[in-house]
C-alpha cells in the first residue's frame, strides 16, 4: 500500500473543507471494504484519507412527506434490519442482504455501496490493459474472460458491470442521492442519473464532482404492490450477481396496474428497464406478458462471447421474479 496521511472529519462541512484543502489526491473513507482492498493492490493510491465514518449521517428517519431519509453513513446491516425498511421497502432489505457477507455489511456504508468499483478481473489485474484503471490502455475483457460482463449499455471501451445489489433496489424505488459539494452546495440526484454508462470514459462512473460527499439516500413513499429482489449467482451466498432483478408489481383483477423493473449484473449501472415496464402496464398478469416484457428489456442486449448466456438468463430471471411477485401477492 502506498503511504498516505489520515484525518477524521466530525461534520459534513469539515469533511468538505478537508477535501478542498487536500486536493485531487485525497479520498473519503468510510467502511473501507472496497477502497482498502483496492489500495492494497495499489489500484487506488490516495495520498490523503479523510475518515467520514463517524459523520452524524447515520440515522434512518421518516419524513413528514412520507419519504424515508437514510443517512449516507448508516451501515448496510442497519438499513437491512431497520423495521421500517423491512416492512415498507422490503426490496431494499432483500437486496442489501443478498450482497457481501455479514461482516462486510456491518462495515460498509450506504454511500460507499453506491460508489463501489467494478469487480472486473482485468480492472484488478494491473498486468492487463483496462480503460477504467488507466484510460487509453484498452479493454482486456472485450476478448478475454468476460463471462460476468455487461450485456446492456456497454461500449468498446469497457464492458464492466456495477457490482451493487442495493443500487438495483434503489433504482425501482426511485431513490434520490443527496450530496454536499465544495462551496457547501447541495444537490439531490435521481438514482437513474447518478451512475454513468462507460461510453469512452469508463473511469468516470458517477456524476459526482471532485470532493462531493453523499449525505443521504431519500426514498419516496413506496410504490404500490409487491416488491421482490432475486439474485442469480455461481454460488448460493457471498458472491456477486450474474444477473439480478428488482421488481415491484401491483395487480388488480388480474391486470397489472403498475410495475417497475431493474436489473443488476448486466450493465455499468443499475439498469432500470422502462421498456419492460411499458409492456407490463395495463396487461394481464400472465407468463406471456412477463415474457414479452423480458424480450423488450433485453431487445438491445449484446453478448461478448462467454457472457452470451446472460441474455437468456436475464429474461428468465425477470419472468421468474414477476411470477413469484404475482403469487406472493396478498
Amino acid at each position: 500500500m502506498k503511504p498516505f496521511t489520515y484525518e477524521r472529519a466530525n461534520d459534513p462541512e469539515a469533511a468538505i473543507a478537508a477535501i478542498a484543502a487536500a486536493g485531487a489526491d485525497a479520498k473519503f473513507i468510510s467502511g473501507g471494504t472496497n477502497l482498502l482492498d483496492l489500495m492494497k493492490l495499489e489500484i487506488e493510491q490516495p495520498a490523503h484519507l479523510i475518515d467520514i465514518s463517524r459523520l452524524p449521517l447515520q440515522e434512518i428517519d421518516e419524513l413528514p412527506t412520507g419519504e424515508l431519509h437514510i443517512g449516507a453513513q448508516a451501515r448496510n446491516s442497519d438499513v437491512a434490519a431497520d423495521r421500517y425498511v423491512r416492512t415498507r421497502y422490503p426490496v431494499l432489505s432483500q437486496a442489501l442482504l443478498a450482497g457481501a457477507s455479514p461482516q462486510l455489511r456491518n462495515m460498509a456504508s450506504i454511500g460507499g455501496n453506491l460508489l463501489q468499483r467494478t469487480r472486473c478481473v482485468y480492472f484488478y489485474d494491473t498486468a492487463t490493459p483496462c480503460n477504467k484503471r488507466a484510460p487509453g490502455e484498452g479493454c482486456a475483457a472485450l476478448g478475454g474472460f468476460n463471462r460476468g460482463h455487461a450485456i446492456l449499455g456497454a461500449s468498446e471501451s469497457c464492458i464492466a458491470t456495477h457490482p451493487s445489489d442495493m443500487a438495483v433496489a434503489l433504482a425501482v424505488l426511485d431513490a434520490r442521492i443527496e450530496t454536499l459539494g465544495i462551496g457547501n452546495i447541495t444537490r439531490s440526484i435521481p438514482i437513474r442519473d447518478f451512475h454513468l454508462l462507460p461510453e469512452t470514459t469508463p473511469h468516470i462512473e458517477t456524476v459526482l464532482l471532485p470532493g462531493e460527499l453523499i449525505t443521504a439516500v431519500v426514498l419516496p413513499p413506496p410504490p404500490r404492490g409487491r416488491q421482490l429482489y432475486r439474485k442469480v449467482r455461481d454460488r448460493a451466498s457471498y458472491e456477486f450477481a450474474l444477473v439480478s432483478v428488482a421488481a415491484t408489481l401491483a395487480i388488480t383483477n388480474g391486470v397489472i396496474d403498475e410495475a417497475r423493473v431493474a436489473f443488476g449484473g448486466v450493465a455499468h449501472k443499475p439498469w432500470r428497464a422502462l421498456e419492460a415496464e411499458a409492456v407490463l402496464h395495463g396487461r394481464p398478469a400472465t407468463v406471456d406478458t412477463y415474457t414479452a416484457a423480458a424480450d423488450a428489456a433485453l431487445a438491445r442486449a449484446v453478448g461478448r462471447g462467454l457472457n452470451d448466456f446472460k441474455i437468456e438468463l436475464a429474461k428468465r430471471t425477470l419472468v421468474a421474479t414477476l411470477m413469484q411477485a404475482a403469487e406472493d401477492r396478498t
Partner: protein
Amino acid sequence: MARSNQGVERAREAKQVEKAAGRTVGDGTESVRFTVNRKPFRLELDPRTTLLDALREHIHLCGTKKGCDHGQCGACTVLVAGRRIGSCLTLAVMHDGDDIVTIEGLGTPDAMHPMQAAFLERDGYQCGYCTSGQICSAVAMLEEIKAGWPSHVTADVAAPHVELTDAELRERMSGNICRCAAYPNIVAAIRDVAEGDPS
C-alpha cells in the same frame, strides 16, 4: 521517478498542506487509543496499519488470523462494539475509542466461552486456521438473530422473529470460509449454543 517514490513524495506534499492548514498530522504515524479485550491500548501506527495487523503485530494477539487479507475469507473476524467485522479491511486508526474483542477475549483454555466449548465438543474444525474467525462470527451472529435481523434466506424479511434453521445458520455464516469443510460440525456447534446446550 519510480512509482513508490512518487507516492512517498505525494504523501509528504499532502502532509505539508495539512500542516499549513493548521491540522495536526504526525510524522508518518498516527496515534490511536482503543480497548482490546477490556484492556486499554495506545498505539503509534503507520496509518496503513490494518486493525488485523495492529492486533497481531503490535499487540501480539495472534489468535486473530490473516487468511486472504482481502475481506473474502472471514478468518480475521473480530467484534467491534459487539459487532462482527473483518479486521483486514479496516484501518486501526479508524477505531479510536472503540471496544474490540478478539478470540482471546471471549474465553481462555481454562474458562472457555460456550461457543469455544461447543466447537471443541463438536469437532468444528480440522486445521483450525479459520476457527477464531468462525467462533467470533458465530457469537455475534446469534446476537443478530436475537435482535431479529433477517437474512438472505429469510422468507419474509418483515417477520419479527427468525427461525433457527440450518439454512439460516449456513447463510449467516457464509462470510467465514473453512477450506477443510468442517461445516456440518460448525453448524452443530452453533446450534448447541443457540439451543442452550453447550455440551
